[in-house]
C-alpha cells in the first residue's frame, strides 16, 4: 500500500487585508470578514508564479522525505495558473530538485483539485511497481477580477507530496481514495482570458457542496468509517465558511477541521488549498491518527482520501517545514496600489 513519505509547502510572505480591498470598492469589511470567514490573503511577489511556488514546496518535500531525488519516478504539477500555456511547469520542477532525466512528468489541470488528482496517479504508479517514488504538487497564483467577490479570497500558495511504499519511509498510509465527478459549469476560464468567470453566488450548491458531499459519502459508505473515526478532516476551502458548513452537514466537528483550515489567514490557494490543509494537519498528527481529506475542483469534481499517520511521522518531523510556521513567521502587509502593481493590473505601463 502506498503512502506519503514527505511533504512540503510554500506560501508567499505578502498579505493584503480584507479592509484594504473593501475600502477601495466601498464595501463593508466586517460583513465580508464574517460572511466569508477570511481576514487576509497571501499575494505572490512580483517574481513568484505557480512554478516558483511549486519548486519551493517540492524542495521542502524532498528534504522532509530524505529520499534521493534521482529515484523520483514521476512528477505532476496541478495548477490553473501554469506560467506557460505550452511548456510544462513540471520540467522546471524536475530540474530544480535534481531529478534524473528518466522521470515521468506532466502538468495537470482540474481547477482546484489537479494536485490531488496527481496524488492518485502517483499512488497507482507506486502501487503497481512502475516507479519507486512519485510527487504531486498543487500550486497556484490565482486571479480575482478587481471588484469581484473572488478578489477577497484568490491567493497564492502550494504544497507537494511524495508518494512511496517502503514501510520504513512512509509517514502516513493512504488507505483509500475515491472521486466524484460531473460536468458542472460553475466556474471557468477560457484560454487567454485573464480572469475566471463564475455563475455567481448560486454555484456553491451544485458545485462545491454536491461534489464534496458526494465523494465524502461515497468514501464513508464504501469503507464503513464514520466521522468519529477520524481525528482530523480537511475540505477544500474556497473561503473560510464553506468547509465549516460542509463539515457540519457531513457530521464532522469544528475541532476536526481546525488544524487544516488555513483560508481565513491566507485566502484560497486553489490547487494548493486542500493540500496545504493536509500538510498543516500532518504537522500535528500523531501515529495512528486518521485524516479524511476531500478536495474540490470546479467543473466539477472531488477526490477523497483516508490517510493514517504511521510511527515514522514523529521521527521525520524535525525535517518538516511547518505550514503554520511558514505562514506566521514572516509577513509583509501591502496596500491595494502595491497589490495592483505587483499583479500587473495597471494599464498603460
Amino acid at each position, binding site marked *: 500500500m502506498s503512502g506519503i513519505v514527505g511533504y512540503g509547502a510554500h506560501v508567499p510572505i505578502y498579505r493584503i487585508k480584507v479592509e484594504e480591498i473593501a475600502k477601495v470598492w466601498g464595501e463593508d469589511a466586517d460583513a465580508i470578514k464574517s460572511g466569508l470567514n477570511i481576514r487576509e490573503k497571501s499575494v505572490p511577489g512580483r*517574481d513568484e508564479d505557480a512554478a516558483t511556488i511549486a519548486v519551493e514546496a517540492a524542495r521542502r518535500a524532498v528534504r522532509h522525505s530524505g529520499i534521493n531525488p534521482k529515484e523520483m519516478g514521476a512528477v505532476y504539477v496541478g495548477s490553473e495558473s501554469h506560467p506557460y500555456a505550452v511548456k510544462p511547469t513540471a520540467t522546471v520542477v524536475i530540474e530544480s530538485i535534481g531529478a534524473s532525466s528518466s522521470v515521468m512528468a506532466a502538468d495537470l489541470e482540474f481547477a482546484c483539485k489537479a494536485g490531488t488528482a496527481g496524488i492518485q496517479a502517483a499512488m497507482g504508479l507506486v502501487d503497481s511497481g512502475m516507479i519507486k517514488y512519485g510527487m504531486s504538487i498543487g500550486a497556484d497564483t490565482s486571479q480575482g477580477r478587481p471588484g469581484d467577490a473572488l478578489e477577497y479570497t484568490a491567493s497564492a500558495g502550494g504544497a507537494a507530496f511524495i508518494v512511496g511504499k517502503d514501510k520504513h519511509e512512509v509517514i502516513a498510509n493512504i488507505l483509500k481514495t475515491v472521486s466524484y465527478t460531473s460536468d458542472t459549469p460553475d466556474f471557468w476560464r477560457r484560454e487567454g482570458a485573464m480572469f475566471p468567470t463564475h455563475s455567481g453566488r448560486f454555484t456553491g450548491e451544485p458545485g462545491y457542496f454536491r461534489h464534496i458531499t458526494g465523494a465524502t459519502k461515497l468514501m464513508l459508505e464504501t469503507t464503513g468509517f464514520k466521522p468519529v473515526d477520524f481525528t482530523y478532516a480537511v475540505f477544500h476551502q474556497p473561503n473560510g465558511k464553506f468547509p465549516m458548513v460542509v463539515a457540519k452537514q457531513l457530521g464532522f466537528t469544528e475541532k476536526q477541521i481546525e488544524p487544516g483550515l488555513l483560508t481565513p489567514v491566507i485566502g484560497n490557494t486553489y490547487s494548493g488549498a486542500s493540500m496545504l490543509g493536509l500538510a498543516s494537519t500532518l504537522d500535528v498528527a500523531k501515529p495512528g491518527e486518521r485524516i479524511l481529506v476531500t478536495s474540490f475542483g470546479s467543473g466539477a469534481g472531488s477526490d477523497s482520501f483516508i490517510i493514517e499517520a504511521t510511527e515514522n511521522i514523529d521521527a521525520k518531523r524535525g525535517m518538516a517545514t511547518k505550514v503554520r510556521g511558514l505562514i506566521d513567521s514572516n509577513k*509583509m502587509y501591502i496596500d491595494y496600489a502595491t497589490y495592483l502593481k505587483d499583479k500587473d493590473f495597471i494599464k498603460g505601463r
Partner: protein
Amino acid sequence: MEKPSAGLWRKIKPRYNLVGSQCKKCGSTYFPPRIVCKNCGRESRMEDRQFAGDGEVVSFTTIRVPPDTFKDEAPYIVGIIKLSEGPNVEGHIIDNGRKVEVGTKVKAAFRRMYVDGEEGLIYYHYKFEPI
C-alpha cells in the same frame, strides 16, 4: 522577443541549483563553474559542486535606475554573497521586510528573474532572501 542564447541550456543547472565547480586537487570552489582551477592550472581536476545556498552579505547596493529588463522591479537590491562553502556569488536580494546589512545571513530561494515581454521565455533563477 529574443531567442534564447545557444548556451542557455547549460546555464540552467547553475541558475536553478547553484551548481558550481570544485577542484579535487586543492579543494577550491567556484561559482559560476570554472573549467580550470586558478591555483592548479593544468594540474586541476574539476567536478560539479552544488552549493547549499546559505551564506552572508559581503556587499550590496540598491538599484534605482535599472536596465530595461528590470524596469518594473526597481528599487531592488543586488549583492555579493559569500556562500558557506567558500565562493562569492552575485545575486538579487529579495525584499522580505528584513534589514539588509553587511553580514546579514541569507539563504537561496527560487524566483523568476525576468519575463521576456508577452511572448518570450520566463527566466528562473536563484535569489537570496535575508533570514
